[in-house]
């Protein structure tokens, strides 16, 4: 009997993968319950470092979800129609990214049951309010944009064919959704940088280029993650089918974008050396010579920008799938490093409020609870993407023909001049 059971339970790599993610999710569930029950006191956050690991996950998920708006804008607004299958994957990745951000935020705020108040009591002065509104509205847009993808669920098609057909119909409004997505994303992706950029109490952040950097890095990282995820899925399962030529072209575009991102980031760091400015200069020292130096020089600059730039712009390495995947993953990781460095550096430098006093320093290391909950948020993203690939054909570049409605324009009369 027991032997029979065991022979039925074949542990495929798929089951093992889901099991592994399940364990991480379970750990996160425990951590999450503890946070709601005991409060944020069980984290390593302090009055000096009130935003830590979770805010980085929140910022990174939103940044790496930016492939959705940028590729949808490209496909539906700028006429790059052949990238539609990639935009489709990006939309799904976007939906995952924004829901991940929501999870992180709900954990992070002190009064999660009051989150709706931002929708009722508007402080239009507040960047945080603007970001909250945009994120909620854009998440709604993403839900609509994902409808045609969700309509691919076999069960839904069989059980509720009419609903599935209705959901597919939403695709006809894709260009309008793309306009909304572009507008809302341009607003909040840059405003997330401005959340830091307007804080005049902390000179390390107080600069206008924060918005530009956040926007640009989000586009670069977002497209990279979508391309990487598509390639990885196509290698692991035959449920995912990619048009490699398409990905290769998009990857080359990422390579060019990286030049711009590198220019702005390097310029941002270099301009901080121009004069001594209390707080800003100390922040730059932490970033370039202190505890964050490895993150900055290796994580952000070398592996996050320069190496992938070369790998993606040099044709032989770009044509090689392994190097292309490596480069795309490095870009995404580099953007995460940028978010972490930016957030944490501003806090590690403690500004004196008494004139003449020297800048002080503090430290932060996430607690086990923060790490467990954070890992679970990432595991949720991986689970959602894996299920999407398997059941919703999220990565399927052969779908284009049947999915995309074609508009036939027939000439009634040949033009005569």
């Amino acid at each position: 009997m027991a032997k029979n059971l065991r022979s039925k339970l074949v542990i495929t790599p798929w089951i093992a993968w889901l099991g592994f993610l399940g364990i991480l999710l379970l750990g996160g569930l425990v951590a999450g319950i503890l946070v709601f029950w005991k409060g944020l006191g069980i984290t390593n956050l302090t009055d000096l470092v009130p935003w830590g690991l979770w805010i980085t996950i929140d910022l990174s998920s939103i940044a790496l979800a930016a492939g959705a708006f940028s590729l949808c804008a490209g496909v539906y607004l700028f006429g790059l129609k052949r990238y539609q299958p990639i935009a489709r994957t990006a939309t799904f990745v976007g939906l995952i990214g924004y829901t991940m951000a929501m999870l992180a935020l709900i954990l992070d705020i002190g009064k999660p049951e009051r989150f709706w108040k931002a929708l009722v009591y508007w402080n239009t002065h507040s960047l945080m309010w603007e970001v909250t509104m945009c994120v909620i509205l854009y998440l709604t847009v993403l839900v609509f944009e994902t409808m045609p993808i969700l309509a691919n669920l076999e069960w839904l098609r069989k059980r509720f064919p009419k609903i599935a057909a209705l959901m597919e119909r939403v695709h006809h409004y894709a260009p309008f959704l793309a306009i909304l997505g572009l507008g809302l994303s341009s607003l909040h992706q840059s405003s997330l940088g401005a959340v830091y950029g307007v804080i005049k109490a902390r000179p390390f952040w107080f600069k206008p280029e924060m918005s530009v950097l956040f926007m640009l890095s989000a586009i670069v990282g977002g497209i990279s993650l979508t391309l990487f995820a598509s390639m990885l899925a196509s290698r692991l399962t035959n449920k995912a089918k990619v048009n490699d030529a398409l990905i290769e072209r998009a990857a080359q575009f990422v390579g060019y974008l990286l030049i711009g991102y590198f220019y702005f980031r390097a310029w941002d760091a270099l301009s901080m050396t121009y004069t001594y400015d209390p707080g800003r200069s100390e922040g730059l020292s932490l970033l370039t010579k202190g505890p964050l130096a490895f993150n900055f020089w290796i994580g952000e600059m070398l592996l996050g920008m320069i190496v992938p730039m070369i790998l993606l712009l040099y044709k032989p390495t770009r044509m090689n799938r392994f190097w292309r995947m490596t480069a795309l993953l490095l870009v995404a990781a580099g953007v995460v490093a940028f978010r972490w460095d930016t957030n944490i550096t501003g806090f590690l430098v403690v500004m004196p409020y008494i004139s003449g006093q020297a800048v002080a320093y503090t430290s932060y290391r996430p607690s086990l609870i923060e790490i467990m909950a954070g890992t679970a948020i990432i595991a949720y993203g991986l689970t959602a993407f894996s299920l999407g690939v398997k059941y919703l054909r999220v990565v399927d570049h052969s779908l284009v023909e049947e999915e995309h409605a074609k508009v036939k324009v027939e000439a009634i009369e040949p033009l005569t001049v």
Partner: protein
Amino acid sequence: MSEKNVNRREFLKLTAVGVAVAAGTHAVTSTKASSDAPKGKHQWAMVIDQSKCTGCSYCTLACQAHNDINPEIQWNKVVEDGTVGDMHVFVPRPCMHCEKAPCVEVCPVKASYYREDGIVMMDYDRCIGCRYCQVACPYDARSFNWTAFTGKNPAVPEWGTPEVERRPRGVPEKCSFCYQTIDRGLALGLTPGVDPEATPACVNGCPTGARLFGDLNDPESIVSKMLHENPSYRLRENLGTGPRVYYLPAIPEKKEA
């Protein structure tokens, strides 16, 4: 023909001037409107004379008791700032109640707001606990309730009795200039800064009289007079936040006198 031309030119000029004036007026009024600066009858302010402050922290203890504060949190911190001659100099730091408060500007739900009398208030029932105000405050004047304060307040009853509700877990809190005392005192016809029953606990608790409180709109108030007669400064003035807490710098001769 030429007359018509002149007319047209004059008309254009007039239009341009009109538009410019309208735009200018609009710009000025909208700047005023967006600043939201409180314009009430009273404008409360605090003056702290560093020549008189001995760093005893009685003000802190009075504050802890009257506002029922978790001992892990201090609304009113007294920090030592070196010496002038052989005199130790202290900087007591309540909330600055800024005229252009970064915390009010960044709060997504308007839980931080200005009262008409200039006090920067917190609506603890509306706050969602995002801590953006804490990040934005240039004076570290805000503390987050990482845990709930349920135990006994060690400052009670020796230093006073609580006058306000304890704040719940998950919201930041800060000094409120003891608004409850001011409001109660005004209702009784008393003058804040003159009558102890209408004056913030830290001012009443100071044994050396280093803290003064009063109305900036009243030229006869003690704060107006002190600021008129003495040189003063405010913390991180270059940020343009316009603190309502003024410091009279420490002068050793004044202390001996």
